[in-house]
């Protein structure tokens, strides 16, 4: 996984974010985890190193100073890799399978290519799946409400690729940035949300 370096800008904000006591506890917490954890399967110890965004969100309890958050969001937007062929909509049926799968990135999972999006864990999406989580908002009728214009497609692709580009300390993983989902998988998820034939929009 490619990690962002903590920017100078971020570092400046960090000093103001936590109280001295919490900052002290935090340093001890990080030291303790690095001592107590071990690598297993694909889950290496490097995962305990925060990138710049995680550090800013952690130290500000997910409430980063507004100006810094906006600048970091812009950096994230610029780093989104859109498909070279310009096509953002794939196959919604494949998208449904990807949305159902909770596999990927854990020590009990294999390496690349085997991941799903875990979408139903947090979102209501298609009308036929009644087992859905509520950590995220409902995506049912996503395309019916918004249409499927090129702008909406770009927004949906970007949001799945890197949700933090739109809300810096969002709970949602950065599925493209982290290498969890491939370009084709994200296209298929965009189709699940936006294709008029997708059950999401019926």
């Amino acid at each position, binding site marked *: *996984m490619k990690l962002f370096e903590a920017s100078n800008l971020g570092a400046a904000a960090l000093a103001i974010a936590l109280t001295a*006591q*919490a900052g002290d*506890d*935090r340093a*001890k*917490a*990080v030291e*303790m*985890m690095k*001592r*107590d*954890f*071990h*690598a*297993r399967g694909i*889950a*290496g*110890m490097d*995962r*305990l*190193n*925060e990138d710049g*965004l*995680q550090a800013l*969100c*952690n130290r500000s*309890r997910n409430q980063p100073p507004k100006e810094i958050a906006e600048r970091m969001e812009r950096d994230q937007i610029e780093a989104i890799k859109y498909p070279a062929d310009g096509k953002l909509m794939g196959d919604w049926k494949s998208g449904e399978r990807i949305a159902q799968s909770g596999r990927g*990135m*854990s*020590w*009990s999972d294999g390496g690349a290519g085997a991941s799903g999006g875990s979408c*139903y*864990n*947090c979102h209501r999406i298609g*009308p*036929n799946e*009644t*087992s*859905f*989580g*509520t*950590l995220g908002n409902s995506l*049912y009728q996503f395309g019916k409400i918004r249409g499927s214009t090129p702008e909406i497609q770009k927004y949906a692709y970007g949001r799945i690729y890197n949700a*933090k580009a739109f809300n810096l300390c969002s*709970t949602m*993983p*950065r599925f493209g940035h*982290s*290498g*969890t989902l491939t370009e084709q998988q994200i296209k298929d998820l965009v189709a699940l949300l936006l294709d008029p034939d997708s*059950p999401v929009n*019926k």
Partner: protein
Amino acid sequence: MNRRSIKLKVVVALAGLAVVCAAHAQKKEAAAPSKKAAASATRDAVTTEFEKFRELMEDASPAELFEARGEALWKAKRGPKNASLEQCDLGLGPGVLKGAYVQMPRYFADADRVMDAERRIVHCMVTLQGFKAEDLAKQPFSSESRTPDPVLLVTYVAGQSRGMKIAIPQKHAKEREIFGIGREIYNFRAGPWDFSCASCHGEDGKRIRTQELPNFTSKEQAIRAFQGWPGYRMTGGLMHTLQWRLNDCFRQQRFPEPGYVSETLTALLTYVGANANGHVYKGPGIKR
């Protein structure tokens, strides 16, 4: 309650659950695509029925059979030193078990550190019986073929606090220090998916799929971290302690693996446990 009536109750309860599940499956197949309300009503019915089932099972819990095995193990002379655990001090004096479980994690002067129940019991197995810590850490979780000794022992000790109030001490400086560290571990986002404990357990009323997620930062809900653990898990039919629960949470958090009975886990149990102080612990139970 004798074995026979336990069996009868389990059969009756299971039959009830099977009917509900079958009804759920039928409803699911028949669900028309546009009926939002019907979908969420079905889901809630399943959750409600499971809760009823668990209540029914509570006074006929399979956990009690594991408690009995743990008691025999506690009293047996074992290990290289051929000693029992009857002199193990769980914080209230050697051999005092009543109420010990609901007062851990706590500071232990002999080890000069804060320990949770399983960590302390493993410590006793090492110091009193001569077992090797690294051997106990090799396969610490239950499988189809084996329930590890510490799991049985923790279940027994936990049963000795049934019906008592959680009272995790916060008097010693090290108890307060590890509470603060636990809070930071709880909120530490990292890894490929940017998750912390708080990502899933930081807000009231959320779910993953149909599984409700308690908010352990809330004084009202923190008790749910302890209630039912150690627990007989319906999925797989295995007895598990909080060590397993936390381990599997970190797996799903996409973190590397935390060491068995490590200080990190004591810190988390202290933070969540002290938040739950004052609530009544019902003893080892059943989990979905």
